[in-house]
């Protein structure tokens, strides 16, 4: 496993000579999920097994392009519904071979985690399986054509929650997946953001350590250029705004203790974030007020666990 203490270390980690991902994947330009996949693979490689169920990073990540595979580590594609169970089985198999130093990682989208595969990941969490489960959250089914998922935020425009006379984006609130996972009392839960790579890296390391005790779950925030509506070169600035406005706060929780890893004080107004993303372009003042209220409630929940 590799540790990075600075951005320079990170650059070396993902250097062409070092990386365990293909030199050039076939994702859209400006893809945050690809960046997250690279960070995960290069952090844990070579001693890892990764499972990536159907989703963007199965099709254009691990699958590779032409005759080259996307990853140079043992890789499996579970079904959309069973990443938790598949990776539990692989962990069990390695245990029986007395191999206890291989990191078993699931890298699954929000559809494969929060919707279709939720029973499986919840089951793995209840058994406190010693695996690292990473949910890359692009807030919808992007590779199939931008359909809403349960983590799509309220009011967001998708192809199945369009903006028009009869519909004004999604009606329902996003599912707080990380909190739900933490409530299984697993060994480690965290949220991360590609715009905070060192924070993400240290959480990946802590997750790996936590698998001595049980399951680790990380939700990483990955904005999607084509699905959300922003230019290819704005991925990181959009991602950063989400955290800086407390729309996507960064925290980690272990031993029942929640810690904010980026301060939630002095947050920028959430409109800074909403205005940078096309899928919120239609929001009315009342809807923005509702978004703020939902965010405040979510923050109060988190603060309760932080004991603040």
């Amino acid at each position, binding site marked *: 496993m590799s540790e990075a203490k600075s951005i320079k270390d990170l650059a070396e980690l993902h250097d062409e000579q070092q990386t365990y991902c293909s030199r050039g994947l*076939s*994702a*859209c*330009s400006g893809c945050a999920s690809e960046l997250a996949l690279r960070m995960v693979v290069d952090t844990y490689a070579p001693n890892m097994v990764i499972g990536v169920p159907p989703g*963007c990073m199965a*099709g*254009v990540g691990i699958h590779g392009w032409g005759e080259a595979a996307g990853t140079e580590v043992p890789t499996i594609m579970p079904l959309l519904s069973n990443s938790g169970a598949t990776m539990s089985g692989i962990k069990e198999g390695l245990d029986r071979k007395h191999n206890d130093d291989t990191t078993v990682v699931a890298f699954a989208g929000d559809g494969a985690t929060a919707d279709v595969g939720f029973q499986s990941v919840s089951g793995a969490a209840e058994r406190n399986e010693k695996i690292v489960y990473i949910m890359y959250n692009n807030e919808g089914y*992007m*590779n*199939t*054509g*931008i359909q809403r998922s349960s983590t799509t935020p309220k009011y967001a425009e998708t192809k199945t929650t369009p903006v028009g006379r009869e519909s004004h984006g999604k009606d329902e609130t996003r599912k707080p997946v990380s909190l739900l996972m933490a409530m299984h009392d697993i060994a480690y839960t965290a949220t991360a953001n590609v715009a905070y790579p060192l924070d993400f890296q240290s959480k990946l390391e802590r997750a790996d350590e936590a698998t001595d005790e049980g399951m680790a779950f990380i939700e990483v925030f990955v904005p999607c*250029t*084509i699905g959300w509506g922003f*230019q*290819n070169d704005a991925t990181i600035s959009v991602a950063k705004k989400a955290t800086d406005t407390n729309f996507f706060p960064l925290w980690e929780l272990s031993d029942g203790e929640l810690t904010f890893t980026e301060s939630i004080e002095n947050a920028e107004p959430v409109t800074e974030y909403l205005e940078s993303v096309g899928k919120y372009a239609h929001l009315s003042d009342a809807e923005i007020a509702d978004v703020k209220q939902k965010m405040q409630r979510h923050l109060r929940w988190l603060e309760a666990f932080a004991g603040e």
Partner: protein
Amino acid sequence: MYRINFIGRGGQGVVKAARILVSASLAAGQYATALPSFDFVRRGGPVEAFVRIDDSPIRRKSKVQKSDYVVSFDAGMQELPDAVNRAVEDSTVLLNLAADPEAVEMPVHVGRIGTVDATSIANERLVKNPIPIVNTTMLGSLARAMPEINRDSLAAAYREQFDGDADKNIAAASEAYEKLQLREA
């Protein structure tokens, strides 16, 4: 039956080009079908769309294997084996390329080769995009190479599709219509 194969990249409007052409053909009293083909919804990934136009109902639903017209939105695309294999001896191949058609070498023998710098036209008249959206522009060049396309119906299809932006798109198509360079191969 006329068989047309559009090929380009995700984000260039390949699928929409096929739909516009179909709706223009229907308005002109012809029968027409469109079929898109792509892998992931992925900006920059290869996308194909197939159109069939006929005077009688079209029963065939499969991809077009032998195209009368291959319209490539991206200069490099004619090197893709699938697209090239769909071109036959009397096919017309239209490329979005700022070069004389004499300079184009196709890996297979085709009937006619046409070139037009659709990227410049689209960037100038429409939106400037990292991946140039050249669908409406390239349709203009196709209308020139394929006299069976009714230009009035095509313009009407643009109006139906684009509301306020229709005129800009029609102007881009007209410019490509004029500027297409076509040679017998």
